[in-house]
C-alpha cells in the first residue's frame, strides 16, 4: 500500500519538474536570443566605429611611426571580430541559440584580446594608462558570458582574461616612466588585484545567472501549478455540466409528459409520475449539495477543527440518518464490534458523513439480506506508521482503523485506483439502477485526509466476497491503546431502514 502510494507521487514530482522546465525554457531561450542579438549587434557596431577611428587616426599619423603591415593587422584583427559579431547576430536572428551565444561570447573575448594586443604590441606602446583601461574592459566578456551562457562559459572567459593580463604584465615592458616606476614596486600587487577583480566579477556573473534561473524555475512551478488547477477546474465544470444534463432532462420529461397527457392517462399513473418527478428533483438537489460540499471541502480542508468523537455514537447516528430512497428498505444484519470508549479525533459531522457514505455503499452494492460488518481497533504503532500517508504531519499519533465490510459485488482490482476520484462510478454501476453521483467516496477520502487519516479499499472483485473499506482516523490519546484491547464487545444488530410513506 505504502509503496503503491509513493511510486506514483514520485513520478508526479519528476513530471512536474519536467513541466516546469518546459514552461520556463521558451522564456529563457527567448531572453538569451534577444540578448545575443542586441549585444552582438551593438558590439559589432561599436567595434566598426573603433576600426574607422583607428584608420583615420593612423592616416593622420596620430600613432607616430607605424608600418602599413601593422595597420592592416590591427584593422584586420578587429574587423574579424566584427565579422564574428555579425555571424552571432545572424544566428540569433534565426533563433539558433547555441551558436549565437557561443559566437557572441567568444568574439567578445577575442575583441578584447585583439584590442589589447594591438595597443601594446603592434602599436609598440607597451604598458600605458590606456592598457590599464583595457584591463578594466576585460571584465566585459566575463559578465557577458554570465548573461548569455552558463557557468562554464564564465570560467573559460575569466581564465582567458587572466592569461591575457598575466602575459601582458610579465612580458611587455612599460614605456611610460611613471608606470615603469610603479611596476617596479607594485607589479605583483597590481597583477593579483586585477585577477582578483576579474574573479569577483565572474562570481557575480555566476550568482546572477543562478539567481535568475532559480527565479525562473520558481515562476515555472507556479505557472504549472496554476495551469493544472485551471485544468482541473475546467474539467470539474465540464463534468458538472455533464452530470446535470441527464437528471434535468428526466425531470423535464416528467413535467412535459404530465402537462401533455394528464387528460388521457389514469389517475394512478399521474400520481406515480408526480412522485417520481419529485424524487428526481430531490436527487438533483442532492447532487447539487454534493457538488457544493466538494467545493467547500476543497477550499477549507485545512481548517478542520478536530475534537474527540465517540466512534460508536457516530456510527449509531449515521445508521439513523441513512436515506431510504438511496439504500432501499428492508432489514440487514449488522455486525458491530467497536469498543464503547473508543474515540477518534475529527469533526463529528464529518465523521458521520464518512460513515453514512460507507454504510450506504455497503448496503447499496450488496444483495438484500447480506450482512454488513463494522469493526474498529487502535492500530499498533508500527502498522500505523506504515499506513500514514507520506507527508502527513501527525506522524507519531496513534491511529484508529475502522473497517466496513460487505458481501456484495466487490470492486475489480484494476478499477480500485479510480474509485476515490471525483465523479467516478464503476462502469457496471452506471448501467445499474443504483443511485449515486460519483462523489461519495471522493468526499470520504478528502474528509478523512483533512482529519489526518486516510481511506483505502481491499477487494478481489469477486461477487459475494464483497469489499472491505479501511478508514483510518487519528486516535485521541495514547491511553486509548489500553482500552482498545479489552472492551471489544462484538454484538449483532439488525438495522432496518425506515421507508418513506408513499
Amino acid at each position, binding site marked *: 500500500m505504502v509503496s503503491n502510494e509513493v511510486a506514483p507521487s514520485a513520478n508526479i514530482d519528476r513530471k512536474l519538474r519536467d513541466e516546469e522546465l518546459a514552461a520556463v525554457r521558451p522564456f529563457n531561450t527567448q531572453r538569451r536570443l534577444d540578448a545575443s542579438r542586441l549585444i552582438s549587434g551593438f558590439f559589432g557596431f561599436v567595434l566598426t566605429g573603433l576600426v574607422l577611428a583607428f584608420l583615420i587616426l593612423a592616416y593622420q599619423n596620430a600613432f607616430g611611426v607605424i608600418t602599413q603591415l601593422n595597420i592592416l593587422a590591427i584593422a584586420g584583427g578587429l574587423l574579424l571580430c566584427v565579422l564574428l559579431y555579425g555571424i552571432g547576430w545572424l544566428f540569433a536572428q534565426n533563433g539558433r541559440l547555441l551558436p549565437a551565444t557561443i559566437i557572441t561570447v567568444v568574439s567578445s573575448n577575442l575583441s578584447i584580446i585583439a584590442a589589447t594586443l594591438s595597443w601594446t604590441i603592434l602599436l609598440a606602446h607597451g604598458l600605458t594608462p590606456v592598457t590599464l583601461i583595457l584591463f578594466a574592459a576585460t571584465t566585459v566578456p566575463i559578465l557577458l558570458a554570465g548573461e548569455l551562457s552558463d557557468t562554464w562559459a564564465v570560467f573559460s572567459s575569466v581564465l582567458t582574461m587572466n592569461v591575457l593580463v598575466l602575459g601582458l604584465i610579465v612580458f611587455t615592458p612599460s614605456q611610460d616612466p611613471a608606470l615603469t616606476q610603479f611596476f617596479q614596486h607594485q607589479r605583483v600587487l597590481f597583477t593579483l588585484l586585477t585577477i582578483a577583480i576579474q574573479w569577483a566579477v565572474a562570481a557575480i556573473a555566476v550568482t546572477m545567472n543562478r539567481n535568475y534561473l532559480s527565479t525562473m524555475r520558481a515562476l515555472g512551478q507556479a505557472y504549472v501549478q496554476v495551469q493544472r488547477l485551471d485544468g482541473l477546474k475546467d474539467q470539474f465544470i465540464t463534468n458538472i455540466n455533464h452530470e446535470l444534463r*441527464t437528471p434535468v432532462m428526466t425531470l423535464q*420529461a416528467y413535467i412535459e*409528459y404530465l402537462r*401533455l*397527457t394528464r387528460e388521457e*392517462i389514469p389517475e394512478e399513473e399521474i400520481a406515480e*409520475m408526480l412522485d*417520481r418527478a419529485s424524487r428526481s428533483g430531490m436527487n438533483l438537489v442532492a447532487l447539487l449539495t454534493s457538488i457544493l460540499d466538494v467545493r467547500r471541502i476543497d477550499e477549507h480542508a485545512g481548517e478542520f477543527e478536530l475534537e474527540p468523537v465517540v466512534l460508536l455514537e457516530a456510527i449509531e447516528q449515521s445508521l439513523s440518518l441513512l436515506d431510504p430512497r438511496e439504500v432501499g428498505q428492508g432489514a440487514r444484519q449488522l455486525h458491530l464490534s467497536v469498543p464503547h470508549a473508543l474515540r477518534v479525533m475529527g469533526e463529528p459531522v464529518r465523521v458521520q458523513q464518512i460513515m453514512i457514505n460507507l454504510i450506504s455503499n455497503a448496503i447499496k452494492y450488496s444483495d438484500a439480506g447480506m450482512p454488513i460488518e463494522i469493526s474498529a481497533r487502535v492500530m499498533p504503532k508500527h502498522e500505523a506508521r506504515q499506513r500514514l500517508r507520506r507527508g502527513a504531519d501527525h506522524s507519531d499519533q496513534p491511529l484508529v482503523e475502522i473497517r466496513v465490510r460487505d458481501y456484495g459485488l466487490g470492486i475489480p482490482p484494476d478499477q480500485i485506483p479510480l474509485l476515490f476520484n471525483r465523479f467516478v462510478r464503476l462502469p457496471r454501476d452506471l448501467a445499474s439502477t443504483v443511485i449515486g453521483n460519483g462523489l461519495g467516496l471522493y468526499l470520504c477520502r478528502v474528509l478523512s485526509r483533512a482529519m489526518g487519516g486516510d481511506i483505502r479499499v481491499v477487494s478481489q472483485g469477486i461477487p459475494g466476497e464483497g469489499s472491505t473499506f479501511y478508514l483510518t482516523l487519528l486516535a485521541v490519546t495514547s491511553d486509548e491503546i489500553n482500552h482498545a484491547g479489552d472492551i471489544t464487545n462484538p454484538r449483532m444488530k439488525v438495522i432496518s431502514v425506515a421507508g418513506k410513506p408513499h
Partner: protein
Amino acid sequence: MKEQTLKRHCDHDRSSVGSSRSPTNSFALRQLTEGHIMTTPSEPYTVLIVEDNVELLDILSRALRRIGHFNVVGASDGVTGLEQYYVVHPNCMVIDVKMPGLDGYQLVRALRGDPTTAATPLIILTAMTQDKERFAGLAAGADLYLLKPITPQDLAAAIHRAILISEQERQHQLQTLADDETPSY
C-alpha cells in the same frame, strides 16, 4: 452498385442534417411535427431507445408513446440495443453515448457498417456538449446529434424528421434506379 449509391446518399444526407441547423427548439421542426406528421400516424413507427439511465429511459418511452405516437422499445446498454435492433427492426434509433460495454459511437458505427442496417435513421442523444464530441458523433454516422436536456416533444419531432428525410432519400433512390436519369425535384 446499388449499395454504393445508397451509401453515398446517406453520407450526403447525414452531413447536411448534422451541420445545417440546431436540432432543438427549431421552428421548422415544430412545424413539421405539429403540421402533418403527428396528426396522421397511419401506422406507428417503431423507435428503439438505447439509454443507460433507466429512469430517463422509462419516462422517455412513456412520453414518446403518448406524445409522438411511436411504438417504443427500450434498451439500457449498447449490446442489448444491438440485439434489440434485430428483434424489432426499428424505424429510428435514439442512442446515448456514455454507456457501459458498447458505447453510443460504437453502436452507430456497427449499425452503419452492416448494409442491412445502414439506412436506419440514428439519433445521438447525449450530455456531452463539446464540439469535438459532436463531430465524433456525426463522423461515426449519426443523422442527428441532440444535446440533453431536450423535451419529449422536441425529441419526437426530431425522430419524425429523421425518418421523413430517410424516407425521402429512399424514394429518391428508387426513382434514380428506375429511370437512371438525373432526378427532377
